[in-house]
């Protein structure tokens, strides 16, 4: 991806972060399951409305009616192979047409939905550290094996205590620390890298918080996946910084399950409300 795309995505992330911080802030205090249900309902309805206004509804209706008619023909003329085969072919064609008609709304929604998922992942992909809990933070340096090794140190902070480190993995150009969280809240860890200061956000708390697993490298995929913090400039001596947060639990908001829950939940909501909003899906 070009620099321009990465810059544009970073800008979009900034907007999404602003909106996300505001609109998703109740997730920090709501019970996890309830929060996931509310998000699924709201996003399901919003996506439904967006679909209504970005799709060709009359064409959708026509395709749906055509499919219904062919289904009726199938049941009425099941003894006629020619009619059955023809109807089956037209049903398949109708389904393909409906996918084609849906491409425009999908194209319209793909960016906001991706941004939304990026914001939700900040809440549910991992849980914040708890006071007293320790974790590993890894700073990945730019360059290759032959590049010089910069001076790197982590600025002392009252929020954390360094248990082990810095430990250098020369083959991977990484430096690791084991840190213990001391104070709840959002903290900025400051690293001095050859005289430059770079920062990484750390979340410590008992309740759900926005956790930024990685401050990404100058890489489009990483920028999409880790939207909370701006990527490191390609000229920066640091490529990325990541924190090993513990996985979050719960079947609606767990690390392994939140995306499935959200997808199924919002789809069900959209189907349930399609009559209310008079949307043909």
């Amino acid at each position, binding site marked *: 991806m070009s620099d321009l795309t990465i810059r544009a995505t970073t800008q979009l992330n900034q907007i999404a972060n602003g909106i996300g911080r505001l609109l998703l802030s109740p997730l920090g205090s709501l019970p996890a399951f309830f929060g996931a249900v509310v998000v699924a309902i709201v996003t399901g309805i919003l996506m439904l409305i967006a679909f209504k206004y970005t799709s060709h509804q009359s064409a959708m209706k026509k395709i749906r009616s055509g499919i219904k008619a062919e289904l009726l023909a199938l049941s009425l003329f099941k003894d006629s192979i020619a009619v059955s085969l023809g109807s089956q072919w037209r049903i398949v064609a109708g389904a393909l047409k409906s996918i084609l008609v849906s491409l425009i709304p999908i194209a319209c929604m793909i960016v906001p939905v991706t941004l939304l998922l990026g914001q939700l992942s900040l809440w549910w992909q991992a849980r914040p550290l708890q006071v007293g809990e320790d974790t590993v933070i890894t700073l990945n340096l730019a360059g290759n094996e032959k590049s010089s090794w910069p001076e790197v140190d982590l600025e002392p902070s009252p929020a954390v205590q360094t248990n082990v480190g810095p430990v250098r993995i020369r083959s991977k150009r990484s430096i*690791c620390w084991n840190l213990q969280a001391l104070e709840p809240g959002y903290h900025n860890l400051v690293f001095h890298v050859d005289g430059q200061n770079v920062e990484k956000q750390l979340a410590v708390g008992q309740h759900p918080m926005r956790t930024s697993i990685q401050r990404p490298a100058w890489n489009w995929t990483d920028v999409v996946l880790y939207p909370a913090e701006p990527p490191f400039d390609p000229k920066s001596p640091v490529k990325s910084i990541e924190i090993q947060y513990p996985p979050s639990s719960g079947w609606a908001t767990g690390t392994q399950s939140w995306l499935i829950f959200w997808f199924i939940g919002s789809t069900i909501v959209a189907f349930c409300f399609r009559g209310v909003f008079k949307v043909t899906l």
Partner: protein
Amino acid sequence: MLTGMIGILAEMTNSNSTGIDRRTLLKGAAAATLGAASLGAASYWLGGVSRVSRSLGKKVIVIGIDGMDPRLTSSMMREGLLPNLAKMSSQGGFSDLATSCPPQSPVAWANFINGAGPGSHGIFDFIHRHPHEQCQPFYSAAETVAGQGGLEIGEHQLQLDFWPFLHKPAETILRRQGTPFWDYLDEAGIPSTFYDIPANYPPSPSKHGHHRCLSGMGTPDMLGSYGTYQYFGEDGPQKTVDEAGGKRSKLRFIGDTANCKLTGPENGFLKTPVPIVIDFQVHRDRSANCVVVEIQGTKILLKPGQWSHWTRLDFPLTGPSFVPTKHVSGICRFYLLEGDPNFRLYVSPINIDPSAPAVRLSEPTEFVQDVSKELGLFSTTGFQEDHKARTNGIFRDEEYLRQASFVLEERLALLEYAIKNYDDGLLFFYFSSSDLQSHMFWWNSDERHPTRSAPEAQKFFSHIKALYQKLDAVIGDLHDRYGSRATVMVMSDHGFANFGRQFNLNSWLRDNGYLNPHECTSIMDDVDWSSTTAYGLGINGLYLNLKGRERDGIVEPGAQEDALKDELATRLMAVQDVDGQSVIRGVYRSDKVYTGNATELAPDLIIGYRRGYRASWETCLGGLTPAVLLDNDSAWSADHCADALEVPGLLCCNQTIRSKNPSLIDLAPSILEDFGLKTPSSMTGRSIFST
């Protein structure tokens, strides 16, 4: 509600109209809905009632401290070092507690569980054998039975346990027989919760839903063993070596990184199961003298002498391509023994993950997950202190002590959970620390320790005393919280004794012409059964090579059998050490000391050693050594597998102990009596609260 429905039905039937009007229909529907809801609520309430505790608030708390010795406890109480036990004793009582014959943990705990002796539960030693296989050993309390049938697809085998296939997958069965005393509580509606009760894996089911338990001693690790550590060192052997309780591998650094392989459980989908191996990397930073272990996307930073937290590992069980891959989860801890110059890394046995157990660890099944939700990850294997790592020289004494102290910390956290979630009924909690630390550090005499200097032996023995004090504080806390409202019992299954000299029973049998040929090195390999009349297996067991029972038996049942038993008993009782000291205190005929229906696998004679002696390491699994009596130079320098009279357990209770000679088998009847239940006929013990 019912009258309302009847009224509406009456109104409907009395109606002169030919159809049902809309109003009536709505009324009927509303009434029916309410009726159904009421019925559902009533059923739920009734269901709830049946699960409600019927202990009427009665509380009994039993703290099982494996191997806590009454002699040491008494002397420390006299010195004022165990004030809480002393206080409880003065309120109720303190006594020796007669242990099982032989005094081995699985036997003793099964006695406690059944309220009756080994003849009722069929556990006679850590190790049993199937007579039809002559002497093939297996763990006495549980046995894994191979699966039967399966669909073979390429290199895979699928076992489908539903019709029409009805294949039988391999399963582990609990071999303890008889009725555990919690079944009587369960039947009476009295709740009971057991944390890590030994000799109960897989956990026995609860019929009425009032019994919960976490399985304890006997629970395997992910490799199906009773704890297999893995060691990676630059000083390791060229090829991975399996040693008793562990695997030792060589690790080579290329630059600052070494690639290693961690052995996991076998993939049961394969026709010939092979272990699943997880690749992991170790990165060493010599300047910082630290390493980063990178495994399955998780990084662990370790300094020399540092332990990691529990780390979750994922093992994919891949089957035929059309079958989704199954994943099982295990947990382990890493310990960096040394970073530089000789890198040495210890990986704990891979425990079954309590948050997603691959096999059933508790009753009900989800109980262990409930505990894990609150406590996080914790060890689940039966033997949590890694004594094998110590005896094989991976750990030094201090390192073993540290690992054992982690186990105790976990136990104390679990005890807090247990207390927090305890309302009434029976709460049983088990501590293994006193047993597995005593095996290594106990030495309560001025005699020469086989491997340590006298000051060293005393230093390590002081750890045992410190441990007793720690446990005393735990008991004090519990007594303060519940003493006035509950019956509190502290009990141990046996005591402890030095283990300075070892006796090879098979070598003795060989030297005395009972086991042949004279060059025999192991009864598993080169014994001549046609000229062998007796053999030793397990720690205290002696078996006759009996015709009709043993596959290659030669001893005629009846008169010859009786005569041989008496002859062996007499001659064994006469065995003396080089200094003239008697080695064996008692030899017991199982047909005289055991009663019950579960004696099929009992040894013919049970050897009761004097304090200071025990069966040799080799003889337990049928090995022979040139000498019959040897020094015990193992780090395992204390034991309890002696004569039952040498190593009684202890009982301390806040209620008066009326029985003069309480025994392990008396505790179950006592607990039942405390809840107002009669002693069942399956029990041979009698309540300690009755004269």
